[in-house]
């Protein structure tokens, strides 16, 4: 939970930058650092006291952040749940014979799925739906953009979960395949236990922790991809506002080209985040005696 503090601070910073961009988009005379720092300094007290109103909705900023967070985390949790369920499920399915070799369809599926980036899937999905709208008399089966906890979820979730799903499936199958060659598995097979029993009673408990780490690693990547997905589908979550805060403009007046983002502050806060992660880790290890014994042998 302590990790949430720097993350929340960073997200807060993004929001402030975004608000400042929208509130005063023509302050070219000041350097980006001056603009951002001044806005940050004057706005932060209002933000912390929840008296800063979000432009457009006139809701308190922190309230708005909470709502946007629910949207983002909701999409992320649904997509990650789908990825984990189907990924682990298909990985387990192909391992049911306790072989190291995988079926060809599985290799093709996972290789192709791992090669498909979420933004490519999302862009293709949007283009396909527009194609239906423009060139056929039918309505698209799924909404192309917008926020909603219904059909609007389908395309974003698909775009977000396919690559992690395939990655989890392949890693799971590889883990089970390697574990199935262990002596204790051979012994259980010699004893006459069924493959299903061996898979779920012996292999699963041994590999559950590793599979959990694999899922966590994929979710970490999904968090980054979430920003892109929210932009493409106009999801209206935190990611969209973060991107607006950091992305250089695509259309601008050439003469005074300026980036709104205060790069130094952003980078500085990023370093703070990393350092805070480090400090938290040190505290965690110092506070847990068993880590003194274990950290040299259990990997990082």
């Amino acid at each position, binding site marked *: 939970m302590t*990790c949430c503090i720097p993350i929340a601070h960073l997200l807060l910073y993004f929001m402030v930058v975004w608000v400042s961009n929208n509130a005063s988009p023509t302050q070219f005379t000041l350097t980006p650092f001056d603009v951002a720092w001044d806005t940050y300094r004057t706005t932060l007290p209002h933000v912390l006291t929840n008296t800063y109103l979000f432009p457009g909705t006139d809701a308190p900023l922190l309230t708005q952040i909470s709502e946007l967070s629910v949207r983002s985390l909701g999409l992320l949790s649904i997509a990650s749940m789908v990825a984990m369920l189907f990924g682990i499920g298909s990985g387990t399915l192909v391992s049911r014979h306790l072989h190291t070799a995988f079926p060809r369809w599985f290799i093709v599926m996972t290789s192709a799925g791992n090669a498909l*980036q979420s933004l490519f899937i999302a862009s293709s999905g949007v283009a396909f739906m527009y194609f239906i709208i423009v060139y056929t008399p039918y309505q698209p089966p799924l909404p192309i953009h917008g926020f909603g906890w219904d059909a609007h979820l389908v395309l974003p979730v698909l775009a977000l979960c396919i690559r992690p799903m395939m990655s989890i499936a392949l890693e799971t199958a590889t883990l089970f395949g390697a574990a199935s060659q262990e002596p204790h598995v051979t012994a259980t097979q010699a004893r006459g236990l069924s493959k299903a029993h061996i898979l779920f009673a012996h292999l699963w408990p041994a590999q559950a922790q590793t599979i959990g780490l694999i899922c966590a690693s994929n979710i970490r990547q999904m968090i980054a991809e979430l*920003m892109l997905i929210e932009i493409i589908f106009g999801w209206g979550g935190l990611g969209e506002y973060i991107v607006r805060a950091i992305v250089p403009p695509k259309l601008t007046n*050439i003469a005074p080209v300026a980036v709104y983002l205060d790069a130094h502050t952003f980078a500085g806060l990023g370093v703070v985040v990393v350092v805070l992660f480090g400090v938290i880790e*040190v505290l965690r290890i110092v506070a847990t005696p068993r880590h003194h014994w274990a950290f040299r042998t259990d990997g990082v």
Partner: protein
Amino acid sequence: MKHSLSFIVGVAILTIVAVLTIAGTALAPRNPLERSVVSKTADGYQAPPYPISTPGYILGSDQYGRDILSRIMAGTQPTMLTIIVVATFRLIIGTLFGLLRQFSPASVALIVGVFIRAITYLPQLFGALLVLVLAGTSPQLGVFIVALVWSGWGDVAQIISQRTAKFRQQLVYDAAVSSGATQQSILVRHVRRHLAPLWGMLWLREMSNSLALLAMLGFLGYFVGGAQWIIVAGDAVPIGARTSDIPELGQLLATSFERVLEPQAMFMVGGYIALILLGFNLLGDGLRTRMSYLPRATRVGLWKQVVFASEWWASRLPRWQIILFCVVISAGAIVPFVSFSGRSASMTSTKTTDHIWQLNTTWRDARADAGGSFRGPPLAVPRTVDTLPAPPHELASVVISNRAGDLVGYSTTPGLLIFEQRTERWSEYPLKFKPVGNPSLTHDEEIVVVGAQGFIAEYDFDGIQRSSYTVKTRAIATAGATVDNDGNVYVTVVDRVESFDHTGEWRWVTPKVMLFGEHQAQLSPDGDLVILGSEVFDAADGARLPLFAAPTSTEFENPLIISGADGYLYQRISHRLRQLDVQNFTPTTIAELGWNANQVTMFFPERSGVTAHGIGWMVYKGFGGIGRFVWLIPNQEAIQIPIDTSMNVMFVADEGQFFACNMRECITHSIGNPNPNWRMQLPAGTSKVIGASVGTTQDILITTPEHALRITP
């Protein structure tokens, strides 16, 4: 067999990618940065993005008319080299930290472990953005490599650390320690061999991750090289769209989906990136499978694994499959050669490009003559500069002068502003319609005013309307009138020219032509031809003249016709000017002026012309603050003069001088002098320079919204 198929397909894909990495730029059928705004086909004209299978554009083009196939081929090399460097550094740094984590004192190992975890916790995209935002909107390749390496080495370190930790639990490690082996020898003899097979797969994995990350960063607007700005609108201060310049795959993907109903560029680029990622994945899977097949004794080094796998594969596969594999690999290298055999021999100096870039700008200027040759007076120094009294309302057009020195221009109200030289006072006469372009003068010094709705009126210098008439096509007029010596008036209505005689009697209208922006009709030096963009018409009846050969199926021609001050017509194609002999309307090329521009600039000239002495000139508007004025002297090396991109060339004097202005100052340049030989500051508060014209006494009239300035020799 089923596993080796992954290996085969992965190797086949990556071999093609390797061929494109090595020779993609040379094989590209077009210059990947070459833009076009229109192409001409047998059925007519079309604007970019060109669809797939357009002749000359096999995979179509992006919205700026840049060939997608060429961009993909040329973009493979910088992308692959970048991710190879990034993956290598990630591997080296990750391995060092992973080993440091396991083979260092406990306190150091603790800190290193925390550092690795901190890096690993941060999503790679965030980590890369942290570095890139420091570089602003124009991060260069080095910054990108640092950003990508910094954000991704943590994963490698973690895997190496975990694998090393497992090795240290094995008996062989205990045996080595028991036998008195030092840490260094354990690292070199045992750990290195233990990790060697892993390095290959990690390298492939990191290449795949780097490519994906590069694409995501591109999507967010962070391009290697910082992208280019393409002018899409604007007057004195141009508005630019930010798009990719160096054809790198990440930014290609990012900028290929700006038009949702024309997604072919996105499909092509995205599909190609997916294919490369698939190649990496399949090769990695194939290697993993292959390693489990190999005898334990051969599990040393990636190269041996690959060699052994290849031998195994070659010895077991049927011969026809080997032949098929060789054909696939060869096709990857040969097909591009075959496909592009019809392309131009060179993309640099000798290329006669098929497209003409016409800058869609609204910058207005007065032509020095009806031919639009930009011919100006000799630019001797010093001169006197007079700022005329401020008009009652802001000027909206260039002011022009009659023989008596009186001036006329449009005001923003709208109205006709007339400046009497004798009294030095402005008089304003309201207009009932909004004029377009600039006013023109007939031989009898009547002011010809063209309204946007196609209403044409003639006034005298007392503001009295003498006659009026309207265009017959009912289209809007898009440029001011051109008047010949007989008093005939030529008015551009969108994409055609209508002509009236001196009494206002309608004469003819030309067929439609392909045009972008405002084009004023021009006249040939002898007044017999009317020029509009790339087309030429007979001034007597408006008939289109078959001045140019029909395009072939693989060739586009949209040449721009310009009138030279030396009395010849010129056809501008790319960076070359062809002098045309139009006797009997036969398009014979007499001479050619040009220069090797493609090595210097990626843009086509914004303006070009020829002086009375037959010296060609071209103006380029680059980005980043540097443009070029290029003199093209027959049989000599071209002379380049760097100028600020905000400068707009007003006139070119026959003596080899040009006159240019921006909102701050006006300058003159001589042909042999790289620095301005005359400079004049414009009055403070000048918002822009509308344009300039030449008076009958060879004085130069500069028009800004607030003032009119007269420069006399």
